[in-house]
C-alpha cells in the first residue's frame, strides 16, 4: 500500500519538476543556449539515438570504461596484495604510492594523450590509472584486517602462511575489495570522459566537447542524461556481483534487509 503511494508520489514529483522547468524556461524566454527546455533535450536525445550517432559514441566510451576498469582494478588487486604480503615491497613502493595518490590523477590526462595518442589506448590507460587506487588501498587494508583471533585459530591448527592467506585473509578482504570495485567503476568512467575531453576521435566526452563549440546545449544535456544512466547501471552491475560474493557480510545483509523493507 505504502509502496504504491510512494511510487505515485515520486512520479508526480518528477512530472512536476520537469513541467515546472519547461514552463519557467518558456515563461521567462530563457535562450536555449543557456538552458534548454526539457522538450528540446528529449528531442536531442531522440535524434541522437535514431541517427545511430549516440549509440556509436556510447559504445566506444563504454568499452574504454570497462577495459580501464578491468585493467586498473586487476593491477590494483595484484599490487595491493604484494604490498600487504611483503614488507620489502611495502618499504620501497609505498612512499611512491602515497605521493602518487595525493596527485589529482585527471591532471595526467593531457600527458597520457600526448604519449598514447587520440585513440582507444590513451582513454583506457587514463581510466585504469584512476580506477587503480581505490583497489590498491582497499586490497591492502582488507588483507591486513584479518581478526587476530581468527589468525590464532589458523595458527593453532598448524596452518601455513599460504593457507592462512587463501582460507582467511583473502575471503576476509572481499568486503573491502568489493567496496573498492564500487568506487573504481565510477572512477573509470570519469577517467575515460576526461581523456576524451583532452583529445579523442570518438566517445561521449568528445561529443560533449564538440557540442559545446557549437553551442548545442540541449545536446549536451541529453548526453549528461545518458552518462548518469550509464553510471547508475555500471554501479548496479558491481552491486549485483557484490551481493552474490558477500552474502555473508553483516553490512551487506543489512542492506539487503533494508531493500526488502522498502520494496
Amino acid at each position, binding site marked *: 500500500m505504502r509502496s504504491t503511494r510512494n511510487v505515485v508520489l515520486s512520479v508526480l514529483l518528477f512530472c512536476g519538476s520537469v513541467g515546472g522547468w519547461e514552463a519557467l524556461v518558456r515563461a521567462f524566454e530563457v535562450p536555449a543556449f543557456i538552458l534548454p527546455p526539457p522538450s528540446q533535450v528529449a528531442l536531442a536525445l531522440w535524434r541522437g539515438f535514431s541517427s545511430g550517432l549516440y549509440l556509436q559514441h556510447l559504445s566506444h566510451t563504454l568499452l574504454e570504461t570497462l577495459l580501464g576498469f578491468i585493467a586498473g582494478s586487476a593491477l590494483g588487486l595484484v599490487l595491493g596484495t604484494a604490498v600487504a604480503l611483503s614488507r620489502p615491497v611495502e618499504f620501497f613502493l609505498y612512499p611512491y604510492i602515497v605521493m602518487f595518490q595525493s596527485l589529482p590523477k585527471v591532471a595526467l590526462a593531457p600527458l597520457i594523450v600526448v604519449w598514447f595518442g587520440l585513440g582507444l589506448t590513451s582513454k583506457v590507460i587514463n581510466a585504469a590509472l584512476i580506477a587503480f587506487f581505490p583497489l590498491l588501498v582497499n586490497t591492502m587494508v582488507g588483507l591486513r584486517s584479518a581478526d587476530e583471533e*581468527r589468525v590464532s*585459530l589458523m*595458527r*593453532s*591448527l*598448524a596452518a601455513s602462511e599460504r*593457507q592462512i592467506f587463501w*582460507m582467511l585473509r583473502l*575471503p576476509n578482504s572481499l568486503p573491502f575489495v568489493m567496496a573498492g570495485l564500487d568506487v573504481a567503476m565510477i572512477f573509470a568512467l570519469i577517467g575515460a570522459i576526461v581523456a576524451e575531453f583532452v583529445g579523442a576521435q570518438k566517445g561521449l566526452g568528445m561529443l560533449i566537447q564538440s557540442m559545446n563549440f557549437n553551442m548545442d546545449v540541449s545536446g549536451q544535456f541529453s548526453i549528461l542524461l545518458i552518462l548518469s544512466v550509464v553510471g547508475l547501471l555500471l554501479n548496479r552491475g558491481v552491486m549485483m556481483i557484490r551481493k552474490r560474493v558477500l552474502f*555473508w557480510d553483516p553490512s551487506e545483509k543489512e542492506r539487503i534487509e533494508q531493500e526488502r523493507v522498502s520494496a
Partner: protein
Amino acid sequence: MATEAISVQHLSKLYTTRDGGVAALERISFSVDEGEFVAVVGPSGCGKSTLLKILAGLLSPSAGSASLRGTTIQGPRRDIGVVFQSPVLFPWRTVLDNVLLPIDVQGLGRVRFMPAAMDLLALVGLRDFERRYPWELSGGMQQRVAITRALIHDPAMLLMDEPFGALDAMTREHMNLELQRIWLEKKKTVFFITHSIPEAVFLADRVLVMTPRPGRVVDDLRIKLPRPRPLDVMTTPEFGDYTRHIRGLFNVKGGLDA
C-alpha cells in the same frame, strides 16, 4: 593411567613492556593425566590465557618446559583442539564447512570426515544445522560449532580458553551440562580455563587455582563429586565447600580484591 597428557615444569613467561618485564607466569609446574578434565581458575591477568597459548604452541615460554604426551611443545601441533572465548567462526563458511576447517588445513580429505562431522554435530545438538551460516545461529549454538570443530580431527586433547565466558548465565549452565556429556562420551583430556569458580568445580576432576602478579599455581584441588553431575550438585554442601575453599585462596592472596 600413568601416561601424562600434559607436563609443565618450572614454566615462566616474561612479557617485556616499556617499564621493564612483567612476569605473566612464574615457575609453574603441574601435570595432567590422559583423559582427565582439568580446570584452571583465576582472576583476569593471572596468566591463565598465556598458559593456554603456550600449550597450544602459539607462544613460546621464557624458561622451563612444557610437553604434551611426552614431546616438548615447539609450535602448533595437530593432535590438539583449541576452543577460544569467542566462537571464531568464518562467516563465509557454512556450519559444516566451519567444522571441517581443520580437515581442510591438515589436508585429511573431507569425504572421509563427513560422517564424523555429522555425528559430532548431532552430539552437540546441531543436527540439521549443517547448511546454515554462523550468523543464523545463537551465541550458544555458535560456540557448539566451535567445540565440534575442535573435535573433528579427533585430537588427543582439548584446550579451552573461557569458552563460555561470553554467554549469558542460563546458556552457560546449559553448555556446562553439554560439555560434561560430550566429555563423558569422548573421554578426551580437557584443559579448561575459566574465571568462574562454580564452573570450574562443576566440570573438573581437578582444579588448578592461579593468582596474578606473578602468575602462580597456588592450589591443586581434586574434586570428588560423582558423575554425571546434575546442575543440582551446585546446591550441595560438598560443592559449597570446594567453592568456599577456592574463594578463600583468592581473598588471602588478594587476587580478587586487587
